[in-house]
Structure formats: structure tokens, C-alpha cells
């Protein structure tokens, strides 16, 4: 088991290296002079030269990369050109909001999806299956901005149940926090719910045709035990992968939802930074999100071992 984890972690190194190179290149692949974009064309050559020197853009590219990645490893993501505050600390300030939103969205959608997918898969061809499939298709197809606005209209304006904007820290006020969380989490989770439902459903259908299921029936187990104990655990592996990947994506892809609900997370931050031409900030955020995604993947890989004993113990010769 430990060997398995170590193996997975060793792969982190080349991947992280590659990601850092790609992110670094953004700055240099943008046509034109980044400094011009940052300061505008009215700035003086001296200011420009000063910024250039501050950002280290006047040095050799390899040296730039080395010094940039060196600083990264020490936790220095350089400073925002807008606020003059360190990028990393700004990100970390906004991070809890995004994490809360992503996790909530994942939890809501996965619970619903697993349940719906299992029911649909175990009753294939029935009216319930049909209904679930249509709903899943809808969830997948609806664009999140449309759904978000729709939900705000219905649940904040017409029936003022939930607030439309704002964020409350989970630890400050739990109930109010959830109150603000529900609409954006639902919106964000919708697409994911649709995809996970379909995936669960097809896995369940596939597992139901396996021999061990017949054995389970032959033992006299009830329907609930056969489906929820025997079949579901086997169906989970691909679902877990998918969910893990989705969670990773969510952490970065929350831009639209955060904008609509004015949720002060990383997504919103990156939009604001792009508008403000705050390159170091944008670069820092992109890198950060990439690292989170990679780490989430690592955890998904490790969780395999818990679900599938064959990976944990190694197969028989």
C-alpha cells in the first residue's frame, strides 16, 4: 500500500515541472510587451523599465524561469501589480470560499447522482429510468449561467427563500453560511450531477450482468443488499475517478457561478485580475489551480486502493 502511494507521488515531480514551464510561458507567449499591457501606453519609459526590472523581464529567459520557480518553491508568488500585495496571500484569502462552494457542489450532486443513477440502473427500461435519463440530460445541457440566473429569479426574487449574493464564512455562522451556499452550489453542481448520474447508471447496468450478482441472488439476499452492497461498490471505481477529476475542474472552473452570485472566491478573483491586467496575479492563480488539480488526482488514485483490494494487495500470480 505504501509502495503504491510512493509510486504515485513520484510521478508528481515531472508533472509539476511541466506545469510550471507551461504557466511560465504564458507571460512570454502573449503578443506584445506585457509591461505595456500592465501599465498602459501612457506610462513613461522609466516606469516601464522599472516594472520590467522588477519583474525580471530584462534577463535571459532561462534565468527568469529559474528565479521564478525558485521563488515559487519558497512560497513567493510575487506581488500583484494592482494591489501590491503578495499574490499567494490574496489567493489564500479567497480560497476558502471557493473550496466551500466546490465541495458543497460536489457533495450535493454526487449524493443525488449516485442515488438517481442506482435507481435508474437497477430498474432499467422502467418509467423511473426514463425520467432520470431525461433529467440527467437536462442537467448536463443547461449552461450554468442560465441556470444560476433562473434559480435566482425563482428562489430569490419570486419566492424570496434564498439570498442571491453574498458569502458567509462557514465557521462564523453555520446556518447563514449554508443559506447563502445553496443556490450557487446547486448551480455549480448541476452539470456534474447529470454526468455522474449517467455514469453511475451505466456502471450499475454493467455490473448487474456479472456472475457474482447471480450468486448474490442465489444466496437469498434481498434486493436492497444485492444492489447497494454488492453491485454499488463494484460500480464505484469509475465514478470515483470521474468525481475526483470533476472536483479538480470545479475548483478552477467556478468563474461563471462566482460572478453570478458575487461569490468572493478564486474564480471571481481571476476575472477581476484579468480585467485589471494583473499578470502576476493571473499567473499565480493559474499555477495554483493546476497544482490543486494535480493533488486532487493524486488523492483519487489513492482512494482506488481503498475501493479495489486488488490494487492494494497486488494480484495473484
Amino acid at each position, binding site marked *: 500500500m505504501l509502495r503504491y502511494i510512493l509510486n504515485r507521488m513520484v510521478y508528481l515531480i515531472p508533472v509539476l515541472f511541466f506545469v510550471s514551464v507551461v504557466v511560465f510561458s504564458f507571460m512570454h507567449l502573449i503578443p506584445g510587451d506585457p509591461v505595456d499591457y500592465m501599465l498602459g501606453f501612457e506610462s513613461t519609459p522609466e516606469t516601464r523599465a522599472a516594472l520590467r526590472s522588477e519583474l525580471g523581464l530584462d534577463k535571459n529567459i532561462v534565468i527568469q524561469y529559474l528565479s521564478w520557480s525558485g521563488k515559487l518553491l519558497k512560497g513567493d508568488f510575487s506581488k500583484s501589480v494592482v494591489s501590491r500585495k503578495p499574490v499567494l496571500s490574496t489567493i489564500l484569502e479567497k480560497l476558502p470560499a471557493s473550496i466551500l462552494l466546490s465541495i458543497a457542489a460536489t457533495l450535493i450532486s454526487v449524493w443525488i447522482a449516485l442515488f438517481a443513477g442506482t435507481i435508474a440502473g437497477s430498474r432499467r427500461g422502467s418509467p423511473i429510468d426514463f425520467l432520470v435519463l431525461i433529467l440527467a440530460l437536462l442537467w448536463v445541457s443547461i449552461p450554468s449561467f442560465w441556470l444560476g440566473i433562473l434559480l435566482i429569479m425563482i428562489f430569490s426574487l419570486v419566492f424570496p427563500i434564498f439570498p442571491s449574493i453574498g458569502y458567509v464564512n462557514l465557521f462564523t455562522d453555520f446556518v447563514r453560511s449554508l443559506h447563502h451556499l445553496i443556490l450557487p452550489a446547486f448551480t455549480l453542481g448541476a452539470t456534474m450531477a447529470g454526468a455522474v448520474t449517467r455514469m453511475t447508471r451505466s456502471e450499475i447496468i454493467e455490473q448487474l450482468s*456479472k*456472475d*457474482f450478482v*447471480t*450468486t*448474490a*441472488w*442465489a*444466496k*437469498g*439476499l*434481498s434486493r436492497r443488499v444485492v444492489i447497494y452492497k*454488492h453491485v454499488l*461498490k*463494484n460500480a464505484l471505481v469509475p465514478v470515483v475517478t470521474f468525481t475526483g477529476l470533476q472536483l479538480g475542474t470545479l475548483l478552477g472552473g467556478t468563474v461563471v457561478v462566482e460572478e453570478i452570485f458575487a461569490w468572493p472566491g478564486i474564480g471571481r478573483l481571476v476575472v477581476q485580475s484579468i480585467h485589471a491586467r494583473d499578470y502576476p496575479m493571473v499567473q499565480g492563480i493559474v499555477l495554483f489551480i493546476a497544482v490543486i488539480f494535480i493533488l486532487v488526482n493524486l488523492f483519487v488514485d489513492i482512494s482506488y486502493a481503498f*475501493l*479495489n*483490494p*486488488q490494487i492494494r*494487495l497486488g*494480484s*495473484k500470480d
Partner: protein
Amino acid sequence: MTHTMQELLLEVKNLEVHFFTYAGIAKAVDDVSFFMDCGEMLGVVGESGCGKTVMARSILRLIPDPPGRIVGGGIFFEGQNLLGLSEKEMQKVRGNQISMIFQEPMTSLNPVYTVGNQISEVIRLHQGLNKGDALDRCIEMLRMVGIPSPEMRVKDYPFQMSGGMRQRVMIAMALACRPKVILADEPSTALDVTIQAQILDLIRELQKELATSVVLITHDLGVIAETVQRVLVMYTGRVVEQASVEDLFNSPLHPYTEGLMRSIPSLDGKQNKYTERLKEIPGIVPDLCHLPQGCSFSPRCPRVMDVCRQEGPPFFEVWPDHYVRCWLKS
């Protein structure tokens, strides 16, 4: 439920199981009747499509609906018709009074739960033992089926075991609640020859020791000859011959049975390709959705008569306890 002396342990009467497919209706089991007494070993032999597996699964009502359905007949276990039971009542029978062993040990066990978990599950379900007691019983069962170091093996996952071991686990699981009947569907077919011998020996021993009745389903006439007491020969969903194993091999009555026996090269004697040609059965097994009119074996039968092609023959007793479905013997 009162038992009488005449009451048989298991009696199947005129069982009809149909599969409704796009290609048509396949009569997988067509008017099958037989009985079994306590402590008996009954063999069911036939090739693919003959209905033996469907019949066995029907006894436990494991036929998936759709596309299959039991459309007629009765299955009487200790006098009670299983077809009349509710699903909940049926669950009390499965794994408890009647158990089943399947053909493919590699895929018949759940890969993500330990062997101990899977066996204990059935013990706890039917006998209400707590975890600890169930585990003890589980270890005892593993020992009974000849698995060495059973206390260690309970924690194993199926993939950590060989095919032969997995089949022993299946047998242990089937016997855990001391059922009265075991349906063994090709229990040794997927195993190597030397392991096959082990498993069949084990089944024979346990059957005697626990006085369980066993229905042994196979396509291998050799297994039948060495293991069972009475035999049913099935073809395209019907029983074509029924006899004691001695009677069947010494004087087979149905042309299909004869054909099967003669087409197998024998290990005794000097039969080889130079001495004689194998007596084959011409043609192929017909599609169950498009069975020929009359006797379904008529297109391939070396002694076919006109009546065979028009009307299906009845099933009747030619000699004491030796039945056949054939116009030749009427």
C-alpha cells in the same frame, strides 16, 4: 406444513420456461418433469441450449424477467409449490433450503469483499448469528471443503485464490446453512482436469456426509457416469431420457443419448483415427426459436420415421424407472 412418507423432497411437474426475444419465443424448458428424493445425486446432462441451466435457475426462480418467464408447471419442494411463494418467502429458501453452485469460479464471487465476508453474509442472513459466531462457522466450512489454514484464508479476497480454491469457497458458501438441495451447475467444467477430480470428489464426499441431495448439471458424460445415481438427458428444452446411471450407459434408449456416447473417443481400448471413424451426430442443434415440427431431434436422427417429423413423441416408461421420449420405443 406436514410431511408424509410419500412426499418427495423436490418434484418438478410440467415446467415451462419461455424466453421472449426479438427473434421469437424460445421454449428454453418445455414440459419438464422429474423428482428427487432425500440424499440422492441426480445428474442432468445435455449440450448448450438444452435448457439444463435454465431449469436449475427456475427452481430458485432466478430467471431474469424480461426476457424469461416461467409460464407453466409447478416446482414442489417438500410439498410446497415454490412458484406460489412471494419474493420475500423465496429469499428464505435461497441459500438456505436450496443452494446453487455456479460454473465460473473466477467470476462468481464478488471481487471487492473478502471470502469470509461473503460466506458469513449468508450465515447471518439465514441463521441470525452474530458476527463472531458467523465467522467461526465460516472457518469451519472452509475447513470442511479442504482449504488449508482456513483462519488465514477468511481474510483473503477471491483474486488471491486459484480457480480450484474459489470453487471450494463457492461450495462452502452453498453448504453453510445446511440446505436440503444443492443445484450444481457445471461445477468443475471450468477447472483443470486434476482439479476437476478434486472438486467432484469433494462434492461426492460432502453429499454423503451431510446427506444433501444434489442436482449435478454437466455436459460431460464421464462426470455423470462416475458421480450420480440417476440421470436426465435433455435436448432443446425437453427431457428425452431418464434412467439410473447403470441403465443409461448399459442400454441407452434415445438415439441422441446413443449418439452422444458413441461420438466421444474412448480412453479404454484401442480406438484411434486409424481404426475407426468417430460416429458423429450430423447437423447442428436447432435454434430454440425455430424448432422443427414433431420431434426436435428428427432432422439429425439416424432412425427417424415419418411420425417423428409430424408429432412430438410422448414421454413414457419403457422399463422400470427408465423413461424415454421417442416414437421408436412406443
